């Protein structure tokens, strides 16, 4: 069974909302990524999203743009990203890893070859930002061959027809982009979250993650009320960017993620108390 499905099954039984931190591979340096991944798991991450650096990250804001540029300067390409996942897997066989990136580097390596290598490295899912459901057919067969899930985005502007199509193709989970904008924007409208998640839930049989504008423990706690998973990217990457050693990056990840996890759990338990009372 794909680790993503196993993990969400387990979380559902425990009534726990997943925390999914995003890190750009190779940022702030190539040695930081694997230790930060482990630290994130220790701080309460249930799945991990690892960004594959690309030169033209059209859907990302300044923080992830900068992270990609610095990672590329230091030589982190697809091959290096896969090596990092393989290294992580040596001491963590359970935590699902989703790679997030753009189509061109994957096509250059060859979709079939990349999928084979990704599966061998221990990757569980792929979110290719610029391959929406409309253009996904070609990759689909290769991904399926290696039991890799294809994760799709749903936006506030996604029409019912498009939502239906994404839901039909989705593997693992659907990723709801909680803002109109690029990653890291600070315009999260927490009030609109629950109805949006509800709409997706009515259309889809897979878990729903929320991300793009989540920056604070409060945002995460609110999102956890309706979603099955909360993704935190730019806010974490920004903190990692201020560190100058793998050890400092590990500390920064722990310090940032632990309160987020706590806020999500407190909210869930107060909700459970409210329900049982």
């Amino acid at each position: 069974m794909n680790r993503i499905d196993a993990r969400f099954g387990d979380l559902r039984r425990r009534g726990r909302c997943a925390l999914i931190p995003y890190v750009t591979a190779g940022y702030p340096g190539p040695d930081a990524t694997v230790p930060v991944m482990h630290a994130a798991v220790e701080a309460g991450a249930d799945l991990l999203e690892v960004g594959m650096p690309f030169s033209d990250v059209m859907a990302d804001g300044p923080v992830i743009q900068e992270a990609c540029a610095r990672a590329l300067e230091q030589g982190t390409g697809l091959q290096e990203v896969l090596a990092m996942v393989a290294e992580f897997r040596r001491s963590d066989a359970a935590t699902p890893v989703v790679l997030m990136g753009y189509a061109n580097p994957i096509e250059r390596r060859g979709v079939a070859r990349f999928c084979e290598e990704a599966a061998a490295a221990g990757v569980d899912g792929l979110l290719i930002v610029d391959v929406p459901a409309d253009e996904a057919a070609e990759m689909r067969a290769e991904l399926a061959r290696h039991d890799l899930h294809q994760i799709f985005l749903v936006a506030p502007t996604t029409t019912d027809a498009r939502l239906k199509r994404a839901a039909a193709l989705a593997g693992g989970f659907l990723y709801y982009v909680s803002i109109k904008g690029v990653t890291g924007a600070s315009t999260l409208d927490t009030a609109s979250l629950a109805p949006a998640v509800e709409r997706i839930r009515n259309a889809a049989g897979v878990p729903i993650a929320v991300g793009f504008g989540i920056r604070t423990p409060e945002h995460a706690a609110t999102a956890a009320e309706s979603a099955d998973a909360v993704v935190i990217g730019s806010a974490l990457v920004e903190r990692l960017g201020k560190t100058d050693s793998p050890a400092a990056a590990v500390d920064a990840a722990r310090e940032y993620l632990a309160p987020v996890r706590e806020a999500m759990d407190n909210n869930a338990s107060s909700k459970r108390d409210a329900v049982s009372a």
Partner: protein
Amino acid sequence: MAETAEKTAIPTQLPDAGGHFGVFGGRFVSETLMAALEELEAAWRKYLADDAFVARLDSDLAHFVGRPSPLYLAENLTRKVGGAQIVLKREDLNHTGAHKINNTVGQALLAQAMGKQRVIAETGAGQHGVATATVAARLGMKCVVYMGSEDVRRQSVNVFRMKLLGAEVISVEAGSKTLKDALNEAMRDWVTNVDDTFYVLGTVAGPHPYPAMVRDFNAVVGREARQQVQEEYGRLPNALVACVGGGSNAIGLFHPFIGDDEVAMYGVEAAGHGLSGHEHAASLCAGRIGVLHGSRTYLLDDDAGQIIDTHSVSAGLDYPGVGPEHAWLKDSGRAAYVGIDDEEALAAFHELTRSEGIMPALESAHAVAYGMKLAAGRSKDEIVLVNLSGRGDKDINTVAELEGMTL
């Protein structure tokens, strides 16, 4: 238009409903942009079939842009070259000095019809930015233009022109600080402000419907040329020549001729310092198939699939991708794509200026250079029709600098 559509049965039916030209094109963008693209596509289809809209567009093209632009027989140049007659399509005579205005007039009217109050654009040389700022000024819209900081430095005169027209110019520091990064930034703005903002993309690249829509707005060039050459010379030309950055002036000229099998078509890319190295911008001549800026097309990248920095003496050709319809025309063999390097383009810039009193844009000078090569050795009865996509006023600082002068 109906007449040419009939004649050119297969190619003009492209793109398909998903925006594909064969394997090229499509919509390789984040889901966050999909609704906006679908809304735009619906509006484009609706208004291009709306007589009142088309009448307004035609009227603006006539009275604001100054269309039709003439054909001009470059007799002195023809004599010097000693071959086929070189005929220029004078897009340099348009308002704001290039073909870019054909597209911005169309898209701005579309924005207005859709009720969008704010237009944004990317620009390299600044020509498309100026053309967008111009129509925004006329229609009373707020205008924001994204421009790589390297281009802001290279094209300071156009930056000032845009500001005079009331546009805000945002200098983009990311990546290579040129056109591709400006395009990324404009897309980011659009995703964030889709409700009130219309993205006026400046060439036939990007996600569907831009390649088809920008082509349709520029196809007036080819429709006019096809009619003019028949009226004035009694026949179709033997060859068409146009420079290719993203490919809008070239596709505008080519498209109405696609069904005319006897008319050869040559797209001229910037070979920069030479196609053998990396310092050029010739994605069709020297690139490979990949995904950039929302479509599958030929592009310039490294072996890891990262988009690489390009080089051309002309900022308007300095782009690592190309419109997907050109990729399709190349692979289908209907059009040929060639390179002209910086030196050849500069020589043609001087040649046309001195022999005809017409100073071409450095982009257009690439087409002129190849047109001269093509005409040489051909019979005097043949016609080589070159799209003079823009005038060279914007480039005099660049040319002066290259020749060691400061103005």
